[in-house]
């Protein structure tokens, strides 16, 4: 009789646990029922335990109870961990292990379903675990985002389908799919993911690309062309539309890269009265360009900066390493070196100086990237050419620059977290010796000495 009652109780318990998973809509009611059940079970088990006379039966009963408690503990953990998965306390400085509040508020307000597919590298030495960790964090705030990883060899068909949609997709990067829209991120980071999601949600954003002055063509795959730049930007959600002088004033954003011919007086006049965002990337050898900048309030040098670190890329015509000098949002995801063939010093009094030539001393750091009102001037030559787009820093920098100018309403404008920056750290050998003596000898010897005294 008692055994039968015990088995019935066990079945009821199992039924309640399974019900919780099968009928999540009745979660609260099942939990209340389960709590009541535990109370009843406790009373019954206790009475059976106390009044049973057989030792064998008592032992079996104890075993059952232990097994049941283990089952309950496992069930409660799975139920609780699912509910509590989004609750955490970040004690790290600057909360650097949490998503930024801007990113969280953006994903919370997502109204469309988003699928993110990470492409693993062939030998699996990639950022897949980082991707999963970040996506798990994002999933805590929204049900709209689904994510998975694919392997280019094991999932060849799917990989080829993605490549057809996003030409620059490659192992180590991820693709965001929102309906018919796609976007691509080539590095796993919070910024890159949220940026790619934004790009896929809003669709392609058109940006005017000026032509007619010897600018590199967007379909030119030679070393000096800009096809790679155009393709990467397209996959990141920015569509370059070549426009001539006549249509400049209709553009919200106008990009001019490496002009080889001087601008006419009419063109200069149009650019001076242009009220959109103007991005200039290229040298300042041309007189008309220097005149234009002078009228804007930026004085540009006609000769390249000559005290350069040219050793790294001597085979090409120079090669200048550029350092950021300001924690501007456009540099948020720049981790590689930014390289161009030549740069020209820019001087201005009331403008933001964002980057300078890498030099040995602070006085060598001559500004080469400035923002004045709605004009962004970067005096690096060929930075967007196919040759220089090989450098990851150039891709990251140009992506940041374009995103900042094209979508100033983006959610992730939080300042750079200082904790993410490498800190130079040094301890003199004398102090190191003192530390060694204290921590390895002195403290343990005190305890070991006490052990001898206590004998």
């Amino acid at each position, binding site marked *: 009789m008692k055994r039968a009652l015990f088995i019935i109780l066990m079945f009821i318990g199992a039924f309640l646990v399974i019900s919780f998973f099968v009928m999540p809509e009745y979660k609260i009611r099942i939990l209340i029922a389960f709590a009541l059940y535990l109370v009843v079970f406790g009373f019954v088990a206790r009475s059976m335990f106390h009044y049973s006379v057989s030792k064998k039966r008592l032992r079996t009963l104890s075993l059952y109870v232990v097994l049941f408690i283990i089952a309950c503990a496992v069930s409660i953990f799975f139920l609780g961990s699912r509910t509590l998965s989004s609750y955490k306390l970040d004690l790290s400085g600057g909360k650097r292990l949490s998503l930024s509040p801007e990113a969280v508020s953006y994903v919370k307000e997502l109204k469309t379903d988003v699928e993110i597919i990470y492409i693993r590298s062939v030998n699996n030495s990639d950022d897949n675990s980082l991707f999963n960790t970040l996506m798990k964090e994002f999933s805590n705030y929204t049900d709209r985002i689904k994510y998975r990883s694919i392997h280019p060899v094991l999932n060849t068909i799917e990989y080829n389908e993605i490549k057809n949609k996003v030409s620059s997709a490659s192992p180590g990067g991820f693709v965001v799919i929102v309906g018919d829209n796609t976007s691509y991120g080539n590095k796993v980071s919070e910024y890159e993911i949220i940026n790619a999601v934004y790009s896929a949600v809003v669709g392609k954003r058109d940006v005017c690309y000026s032509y007619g002055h010897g600018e590199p063509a967007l379909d030119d795959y030679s070393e000096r062309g800009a096809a790679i730049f155009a393709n990467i930007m397209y996959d990141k959600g920015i569509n370059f539309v070549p426009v001539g002088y006549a249509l400049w004033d209709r553009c919200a954003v106008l990009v001019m890269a490496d002009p080889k011919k001087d601008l006419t007086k009419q063109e200069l006049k149009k650019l001076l009265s242009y009220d959109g965002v103007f991005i200039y990337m290229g040298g300042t050898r041309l007189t008309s360009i220097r005149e234009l900048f002078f009228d804007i309030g930026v004085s540009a040098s006609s000769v390249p900066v000559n005290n350069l670190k040219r050793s790294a890329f001597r085979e090409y015509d120079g090669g200048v390493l550029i350092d950021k000098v300001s924690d501007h949002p456009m540099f948020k995801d720049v981790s*590689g070196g930014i390289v161009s063939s030549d740069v020209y010093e820019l001087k201005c009094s009331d403008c933001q100086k964002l980057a300078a030539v890498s030099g040995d001393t602070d006085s060598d750091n001559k500004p080469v990237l400035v923002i004045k009102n709605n004009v962004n001037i970067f005096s690096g030559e060929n930075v967007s050419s196919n040759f220089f787009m090989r450098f990851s820093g150039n891709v990251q920098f140009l992506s940041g620059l374009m995103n900042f100018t094209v979508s100033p309403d983006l959610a992730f404008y939080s300042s750079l977290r200082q904790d993410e920056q490498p800190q130079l750290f040094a301890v003199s050998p004398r102090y190191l010796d003192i530390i060694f003596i204290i921590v390895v000898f002195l403290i343990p010897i005190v305890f070991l000495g006490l052990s001898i005294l206590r004998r």
Partner: protein
Amino acid sequence: MKRYREFREFFSNPVFYVVAGIFLALSGYKFYSLLVSYIDFMNVYPDYLAGTEIKALMGINVNSYLFPRLFGFYSYLVLISVPILNSGIGHDRFCELDKLELTASGKTELDLILRKIFTTVLIMAVILVPTLLYPLMTSVFTKVDYGIILSSYAGLMLLVFLSSCMVSPFSVLKIPFAVSIFMNMIILFVLYLYFLGPVFDPFMFGIVRASGLLFILILSSALIFISERIYVSTRLFA
């Protein structure tokens, strides 16, 4: 605290001082070697500016390089120390000291188990006190993230508590002292490597997860209950 027999025994027993001395010697050497390796690592930083290695260096500072590794090492030392420090009830049963307490002072089996567990936690806390010197030493040279230190110590103490609960089911058995320690060490290492590591790793980086705390709470409650059942059963059927 000193009214508890365990505390008096521990502080008058050379085993505690030997365990503490070895623990601190090993952890001190680990701290020193991590400090030296971090200095070496940062010395080569300027040479890598132009290369892709800068990517690997981004996000590395003393707080994210040194302390998670140091506290990860403490975890292993804790897994070795806890079975040695928490082998009490088995020993008491050999000496029949538990009978005295259970009958004369009216304590229950659960009381004894809980007392052993919390004694171990407090003893480990005493051993860990000198390690506070390491972050203080580091703070002389750079800014230390005390949030990470706080969560790491909290995680470590929870690991000590959970490990003490885990060794309890075996510790209450009347089996030889060395066998109990050895078996508990193996159990702890296997469980830590395969199951517990992911629960405690976030603590080392400054994250306290509610699901992790729930896991520790449920598992420790279940283990205390099982220990008590085993203790009662083995006493009844002895």
